[in-house]
């Protein structure tokens, strides 16, 4: 994005706020605070990209993924790196899939409902205006009528369905499952975005996860960040924050970040950590702050993200079209099941290296069978889910004994499915297999995988069991705030980004009202 004319602040200036990270957590905040006239600086570890330069190549796209090594432990260790955490001005929104359902009201009160999981200290009615505002501002495309929420209307018409979506719709019709066009943060027609260049209508290229070249996909660098910069915010790219300094009273007074090998110190009145559920707790643990509750790093969660694949006689060419253009929320609370919570179902088009990587890891194929199966790429289509994950004591993040190039200890994440995740996985495999059989697929198989990074800095009402209060403010340090997926008390079945943005807008409001 264009940063050449942005306002710049001196290192000796005590800016009103420093925001670490420019993704879904940091960017809306940055815009809000700058619009309110505050002096704000965002520090982003990754580069500032010209979207037009993103190649149509999955390996080269590692440029927008967080590639510093993480260690993954447990019975179901999560894969990081590609398509998990992002880097660059815009954070993970550079590579996210733009699939943007809202949280289900019941998921925010799971503990009350069933005695398991956790309740959020914020209810749906509170989040609703922020959801609506974000959807309008971003230009979310979706159906005129949303079957699971009669009050919901999306501002733009849906993006066209690809082959996988067409198959899933016909299969759902046969099995009596409701499905509709997915809410997608991808503009289905040219869209004038405030303070930024016109976002072109989606061209159906299928490369959402490798960076959108035309601005159709919502990423922060084409939405909230141009607003922030126009309002006077400064964004410093390639700036990796490692040290948080505090004054005699224990308040944050500065951060130290490394840019091109040189350390710089930026003074500030308030600090927002928006670096995601791995890097945010890593910063707190490294600096040994904000953890009187002992909850930093605890409650690590990843969505159950099982996929089912099948081969079809017709060509699918699933690389074409918006990848997840159909949704079903019918499994949010299915009847007669042995698990709590639920899951969303989506159609899947996946580009070939990513798809074949899943085959390599998840389907025990090698040799000629593997070669032959890869050759069938143009005939393959998939379904996937995003399912509830309960917080468990055994799932947590800590710092390992190994350091990386930054000199910080590498994060070590322990993650094992519990009985509830396994039950969701089984139910989803059975459902999706039935759907793909109904659609006429052959050679059906399932890939067990998890997705997203959630938890580790839980928000709550009690300082002994949560890291931040219900608006994201640290219980320990009054001018330290957190806003990203780390504050989620439970995973929700919905993909996280839209909820992160809603929380970001809400946290901004709370800070402007009480925090300054």
């Amino acid at each position, binding site marked *: 994005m264009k940063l050449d004319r942005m306002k710049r602040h001196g290192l000796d200036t005590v800016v009103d706020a420093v925001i670490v990270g420019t993704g879904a957590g940091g960017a809306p905040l940055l815009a809000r605070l700058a619009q309110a006239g505050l002096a704000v600086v965002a520090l982003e570890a990754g580069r500032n990209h010209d979207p037009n330069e993103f*190649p149509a*190549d999955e390996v080269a796209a590692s440029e927008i993924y967080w590639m510093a090594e993480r260690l993954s432990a447990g019975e179901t260790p999560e894969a990081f790196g590609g398509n998990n955490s992002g880097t660059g001005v815009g954070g993970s929104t550079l590579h996210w899939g733009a699939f943007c359902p809202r949280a289900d009201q019941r998921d925010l009160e799971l503990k009350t409902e069933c005695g398991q999981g956790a309740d959020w200290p914020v209810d749906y009615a509170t989040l609703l205006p922020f959801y609506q505002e974000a959807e309008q501002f971003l230009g979310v495309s979706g159906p005129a009528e949303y079957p699971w929420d009669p009050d919901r209307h999306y501002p733009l018409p849906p993006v066209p369905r690809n082959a996988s979506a067409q*198959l899933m719709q016909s299969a759902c019709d046969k099995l009596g499952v409701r499905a509709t066009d997915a809410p997608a943060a991808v503009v289905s027609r040219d869209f004038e975005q405030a303070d930024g260049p016109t976002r072109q209508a989606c061209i*159906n290229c299928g490369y959402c996860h490798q960076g959108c070249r035309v601005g159709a996909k919502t990423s922060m660098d084409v939405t909230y960040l141009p607003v922030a910069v126009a309002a006077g915010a400064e964004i410093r790219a390639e700036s990796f924050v490692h040290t948080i300094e505090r004054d005699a009273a224990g308040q944050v007074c500065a951060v130290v970040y490394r840019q*091109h090998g*040189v350390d710089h110190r930026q003074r500030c009145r308030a600090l927002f950590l928006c670096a995601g559920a791995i890097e945010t707790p890593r910063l707190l643990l490294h600096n040994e702050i904000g953890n009187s509750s002992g909850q930093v790093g605890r409650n690590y969660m990843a969505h159950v993200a099982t996929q089912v694949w099948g081969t079809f006689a017709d060509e699918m*060419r699933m690389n074409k079209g918006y990848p997840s253009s159909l949704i079903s929320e019918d499994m949010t609370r299915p009847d007669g099941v042995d698990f709590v919570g639920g899951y969303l179902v989506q159609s899947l088009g996946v580009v*070939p290296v990513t798809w074949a990587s899943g085959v390599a890891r998840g389907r025990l194929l090698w040799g000629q069978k593997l070669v032959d199966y890869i050759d069938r790429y*143009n005939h393959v289509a998939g379904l996937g889910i995003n399912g509830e994950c309960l917080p468990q004591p055994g799932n947590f993040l800590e710092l390992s004994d190994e350091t990386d190039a930054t000199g910080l200890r590498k994060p070590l994440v322990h993650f094992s499915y519990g009985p509830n995740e396994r039950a969701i996985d089984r139910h989803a495999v059975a459902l999706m297999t039935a759907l793909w059989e109904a659609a006429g697929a052959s050679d059906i198989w399932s890939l067990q995988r998890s997705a997203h990074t959630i938890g580790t800095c839980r928000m709550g009402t009690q300082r002994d069991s949560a890291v931040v209060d219900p608006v994201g403010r640290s219980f320990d340090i009054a001018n330290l705030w957190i806003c990203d997926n780390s504050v989620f008390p439970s995973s929700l079945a919905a993909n996280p980004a839209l909820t992160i943005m809603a929380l970001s807008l809400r946290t901004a409001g709370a800070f402007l009202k009480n925090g300054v």
Partner: protein
Amino acid sequence: MPESDPRPFHGMTVFCLHFLGGSGRGWRWVAERLPPTMRCTTVDVPGFGDASTASGYSVEEMAQCVMQTIRQARPARWMLVGHSMGAKLAAIVARHAEDGEPGLGGLEQLVLLAGSPPGPEPMQESQRRTMSGWFAGDDSSRRAEADGFVTQNIGSALHPERHALAVDDVLRAARPAWLAWLDGGSREDWADRVGVLRTPAMIVAGAEDGALGPDAQARFMAPHFAQHRLVTLDGARHLLPLERAEEVARLIVEQAGSVGSAEAAGSVASANAAAAVGETYWALLQSARVSSGTRAVLLARAEPDRAEAGPAALTAAQLATLHALMARVLPQAAGREIDLALRIDAALAEGSGDGWRFADLPSDADAYRAGLRTLDVAAGEVGFACLDAAAQDALLERAASGTFPVAASVGLLSPSQMKLWFEDVRFAAVRLYVAHPATLARIGYSGIAYGGDGPRKSGFVDFGIGRREPWEPLPRLPEPAP
């Protein structure tokens, strides 16, 4: 003449980037000695020369300034000559050009003169402190400091006209820009970002240069250039374009002349890539539907493997075992195999990784060494590579099921580790295999061609079950029988 010339020009444009305190004027004597087929264009970066009042002193901003000049000039063919500070900028600009950024196509050669390397400059702190104290006083002390700076950096006396111009240029520089380089720019570490460049480079050093002499060039600069030549100018110190304009011009012409061989090498590489992907896919790859960035990435990947170079992370014996393993994991037809084992070895040597690893495995390179050794131990005296295919597959079945028949021991992987490592092996092999343009051609993949470099991309208009646009490639293999 160094300044821009509005006439269309079809020869080689030589972009010259000055040293700290210098400016485009300092290239005059070099430019005069270039043949008419070459045209010198100089860039004064912010804070120096004619741009002394411009702001933006960081390396990034200076490099952007250079790229803006190049984009505006729209050269058909061009080379970059960077002197000292300018050499760091040249390496960064070359990285952007090799990444296929719009408006930067056509870079053919680099010449780096007494260059500051992409990583932090090996400058003594005392020197940095001394220089940071300059130019704060009155006119006469400033002039004396500028004169001292020029004098310190030459091996023998300059022609008076050149000396006067150099001193004058130093005095023209904005002091904040001077300080920004000393305290900031020269310390900035761009080594990872620049990586290893493919563009042929000539690296020139003055034999008498202190911190940036021949040793420093070999140690800090040369590793960034896959094809480079080191040249030392005896008796010269640091201000090479002023000290040795004639020789510098000759070296630039000589480096430009090696274009012929680079073009020849390029066409061999192209021929290899074309043969690997087949005529139809090659035409698609060259078409306007594919962006220049995508094309650059795919062509680089299609370059043939250089097995003769030997392994970089593994031993020759381990590489042989890995070759045997790859032949079982992803068998390829003889003739044009992608050397997956060699590419994995290169990735291990680079240490870039894929963003994570199983906590139960050691570092990637150690896991490969131990995993390959464990395969060989299981194979008994002959080693894994000498087993027949059925016996190899039987061992891989045991690896995949976590029942590998070798007990945990020092330097070996346990059965549960073998299961994880074999998963990593399949993953690494498949990524390298599928990302290769020959495989994309084989499966008839259209995604690389969703849009070129124009403001509006074509994208896809016809998709859904059984839909194919007329231009979309068919697989290179016959469809398997139903």
